[in-house]
């Protein structure tokens, strides 16, 4: 129905046709669809979130056995908020609660990878199936990555002395009424939307231009099956783009429709969200560079593996 209204608007009201109609139509259709989905999904996630804060997650993960801990930590990463500015207190807080370092990393990988903006954008652009694949394989990278880091005996590379808490840690419970939760969720949604709506527009705008004017074989020759290093290049390019996930994803969708392989696209998007340079800089204050390098190395390899796997299967 939304498609028909946009068609009517660009064809009848604006009287456009041909390539220019294609481009403008695509732009209006995608921008508003994604805005709508962003608001809906961010609101839903932030409402759920008022029930699970990180302090609660920590109390829950305390004393879980290693592999179970990795799985649970990765799952919690979907629902809890994460901002690279709170990476240090989070990391130290987990260590303080004697949660194994590998479990902590599972959470640290999963939380930004499965952030609500990325999920909303993916769902709006690629649909349910690809979103589910992204989350599923993202969890796999977080679980296995954290597990391997845990096996590597890296405790000595934590540069800050954290004295473990005596006994069980209590979760801090801050009770809220239903109305307060709704308000909080709405405030958060509004805050995020205000920050990213313009990036979405720019991303979709550039995407719409490519959609209308750039020939398909142009992109296919760079990012398609002819280029065996496409996945690796995509992952490296994704690292500095963390803050712009909302603007980058519409581009990826258009590139995919123009011949970029889906595995390459998935790897790129995972690199954008999971490997963030600012986060690495912040963690450098409390972690030895070797541990950070290991963290980036394992996650990077996992993401590259997923890309090749998908390009091979699909």
């Amino acid at each position, binding site marked *: 129905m939304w498609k028909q209204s946009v068609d009517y608007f660009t064809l009848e009201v604006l009287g456009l046709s041909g390539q220019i109609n294609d481009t403008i139509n695509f732009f209006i259709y995608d921008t508003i669809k994604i805005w709508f989905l962003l608001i809906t999904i961010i609101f839903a996630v932030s409402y759920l979130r008022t029930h699970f804060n*990180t*302090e609660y997650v*920590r109390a829950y993960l305390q004393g879980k056995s290693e592999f179970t801990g990795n799985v649970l930590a990765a799952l919690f990463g979907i629902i809890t*908020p994460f901002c690279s500015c709170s990476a240090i*207190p*989070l990391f130290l*807080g987990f260590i303080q609660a004697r949660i194994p370092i590998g479990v902590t990393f599972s959470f640290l990988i999963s939380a930004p990878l499965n952030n609500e903006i990325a999920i909303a954008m993916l769902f709006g652009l690629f649909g349910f199936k690809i979103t589910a694949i992204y989350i599923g394989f993202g969890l796999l990278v977080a679980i296995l990555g954290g597990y391997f880091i845990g096996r590597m005996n890296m405790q000595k590379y934590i540069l800050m002395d954290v004295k473990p808490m005596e006994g069980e840690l209590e979760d*801090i419970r801050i009770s809220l009424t239903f109305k307060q939760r709704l308000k909080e969720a709405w405030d958060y949604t509004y805050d995020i939307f205000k920050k990213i709506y313009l990036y979405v527009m720019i991303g979709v705008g550039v995407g719409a231009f490519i959609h209308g004017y750039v020939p398909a074989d142009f992109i296919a020759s760079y990012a398609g099956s002819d280029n065996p290093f496409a996945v690796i290049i995509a992952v490296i390019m994704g690292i500095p783009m963390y803050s712009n996930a909302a603007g980058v994803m519409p581009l990826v969708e258009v590139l995919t429709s123009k011949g970029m392989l889906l595995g390459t696209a998935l790897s790129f998007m995972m690199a954008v969200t999971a490997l963030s340079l600012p986060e690495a800089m912040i963690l450098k204050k409390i972690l030895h560079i070797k541990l950070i390098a290991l963290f980036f190395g394992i996650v990077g390899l996992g993401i590259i593996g997923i890309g090749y796997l998908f390009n091979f299967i699909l």
Partner: protein
Amino acid sequence: MKIEVLGTGCTKCKALEEIAKQAIAKVGGFHSVEKVEDIQKIMDYGVMNTPGLVVDGVVKSTGKLLSVEEVLELINN
């Protein structure tokens, strides 16, 4: 009453300190607002999401930039 704002220096933490001061000014009387930047002390409160708001040693809010009204409400409870 002693109010502590927990935060290692993010923009939201500084903003919350300002707001806590404004809230205190509305309450009147002798109260103190203190910014806690030592990560160890923040850990001791069990807080992982900054900014945190602590009133007389009790954690009232974490990870949120509150409004003046919200701070007043938390102080009064």
